[in-house]
């Protein structure tokens, strides 16, 4: 696989942007500046980044409660994301959704989702639409290991297989569903093994290796675009942070986390880039600086933005009438 320098540095840049967004979100949350609760993608950046590099603007994704990385990699505006985390009127959802409900239908993000596995049926529907429209777009549906134990997962895979829909089911196996270890709750050793039951390809990939994710998703996307139907991909990774910011994390030792941190995707890819002589210290420095600045600007934008007018809570239920006053 031959890729030019800009392409590879693009991966690095996207991962660094996600990392910076997440570190800042964590800091702001701990300073009690963000209402609600947030789930961080730290340590999982390679999955969204590698996967999304295969997508066009007219492709769709469905995301999860841990969705900031998916949004950024699909091309979302971090200002509007940050404003939504603050609950401001300039946010993606005008303050009505928060972290778990960010969506940007205009770039094909059919929603983060507060319901575990809630996105899979939606992804399947987008896949049906693409097929009816005879287009060559695809859908990637992101979901966790925990989500693969919900009925929606099983219904969606069977359905997508039956109709040969252009949907890639991209499992982010970060080893935990909230406080529960995947091994305690899941009947198979690998989530990808479940593909057999639905007669579709099931592939395992190192989710902390951005190039590997890119390659595996590329194959699945190519297959989907050319009418070959769905693929289940399991990207094995590790959730470095707690389930949500503020999680007391009583279910694992710090030493386990420290060990896993050795394999976190950004420094791993950075070493590769240095080995290949593709990046210099100065370039690396500048990528981090730029990302920090971008996120700083987003925070400024969010802080300067206004909270929505209370009465605006009554808007947006329906397209064609109010829906609340009768």
């Amino acid at each position, binding site marked *: 696989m031959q890729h030019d320098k800009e392409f590879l540095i693009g991966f690095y840049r996207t991962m660094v942007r996600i990392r910076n967004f997440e570190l800042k979100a964590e800091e702001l949350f701990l300073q009690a500046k963000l209402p609600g609760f947030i789930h961080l993608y730290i340590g999982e950046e390679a999955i969204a980044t590698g996967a999304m590099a295969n997508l066009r603007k007219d492709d769709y994704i469905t995301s999860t409660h841990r969705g900031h990385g998916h949004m950024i990699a699909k091309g979302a505006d971090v200002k509007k994301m940050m404003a939504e985390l603050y609950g401001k009127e300039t946010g*993606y959802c005008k303050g009505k959704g928060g972290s778990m409900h960010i969506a*940007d239908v205009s770039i094909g993000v059919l929603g983060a989702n507060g319901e575990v596995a809630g996105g*899979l049926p939606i992804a399947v529907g987008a896949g049906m639409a693409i097929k009816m429209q005879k287009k060559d777009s695809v859908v990637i549906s992101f979901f966790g290991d925990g989500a693969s134990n919900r009925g929606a997962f099983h219904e969606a895979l069977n359905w997508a297989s039956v109709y040969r829909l252009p949907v890639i089911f991209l499992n982010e196996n970060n080893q935990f569903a909230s406080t529960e270890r995947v091994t305690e709750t899941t009947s198979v050793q690998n989530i990808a093994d479940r593909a057999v039951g639905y007669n579709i390809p099931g592939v395992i990939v190192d989710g902390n290796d951005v190039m590997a994710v890119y390659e595996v998703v590329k194959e699945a996307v190519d297959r989907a675009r050319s009418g070959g139907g769905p693929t289940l991909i399991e990207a094995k990774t590790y959730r470095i942070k707690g389930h949500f910011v503020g999680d007391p994390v009583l279910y694992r030792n710090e030493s386990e986390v420290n060990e896993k941190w050795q394999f976190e995707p950004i420094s791993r890819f950075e070493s590769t880039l240095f080995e290949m002589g593709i990046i210099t210290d100065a370039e690396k420095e500048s990528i981090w600086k730029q990302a920090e600045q971008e996120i700083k600007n987003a925070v400024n934008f969010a802080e300067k933005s206004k909270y929505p007018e209370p009465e605006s809570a009554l808007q*947006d239920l329906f397209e064609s009438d109010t829906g609340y006053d009768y």
Partner: protein
Amino acid sequence: MREITFSEALGEAMLEEMQRDPTIFTYGEDIAKQGGIFGAYKPILGKYQDRILDTPISEEVIFGSALGASLAGMRPVAEFHFADFLFTGMTAVANQIMKFKYMTGGQGKIHLILRGPDGISKSAAAQHSESIETLFMHIPGIKIIVPSTPYDMKGLFKTALKADDPVICFEHKMLYAKKGPVPEEEYYIPFGKADIKKEGKDVTVVTTSRMVHESLKASEQLVKEGIDVEVVDLRTLIPWDKELVLESVKKTHRLVIIHETWRRGGWGAEIAATVQEEAFDYLDGPIMRVGAKNVHIPFSPPLQDFVVPDYNSVINEVRKVLNV
């Protein structure tokens, strides 16, 4: 005017709109070969075979995929088979379809329809007989149509097929074979416009769906006793026609509400509360509600008849409210 059945009216609405709009397609269990359990899709069979799909028994995906398909530019019409099985995939309806637009600050046009039969039939028992329209009125986020005649079925469904919001359509099983006048010319019925199915001056009966016919039957009996009932068919519950109901009550000064769904917490309570808030001074008596007794629909015919209201229940409540 020519007469067609309720299910033919639905089929005609689908056929006309599918011709006009290539993004309309429909799917569910047992529809593509049979045209639906009640034959409503017979008019489209053979003409649009690639736009009518039999699906796996996967209710969460039947409903949830409708959201995805509409966001991706199609107009899906998903069948729920029996209202009772809305519960099977209810999370996709209540947590996804009904919340998406609001949660995302108004993004997307969610033009999708969920439709299918509800209500009792001949001893279908508790898991095939429910009327659960109240739930969708209680939870914000979906338009509700509950037609009672072929004319209303066609006109409301055609409007639903052009709407840019999610719509759920409850078709009473015992209405599918009912015939009624439907003009050849095209027409649409707007949401939120009730229809006075019979004018009267003594008491207003507000109702929908099959109970419209029970109410009309009751009014024929009551007219012999000198009681002139006004039968108001709401036709849609979200939105519901508050103005027309208030106007009617201001004329008759008495109100009875009847629905097949349970009396306790049924949508009649909402109408009753609104009327007493906004037209209290016009009322000459308590507002009465008629609904199923607060148990499940039982199997044996005498049990079902006892639990579910009919025209006799309407007659009794009307007499009560008039003190006769």
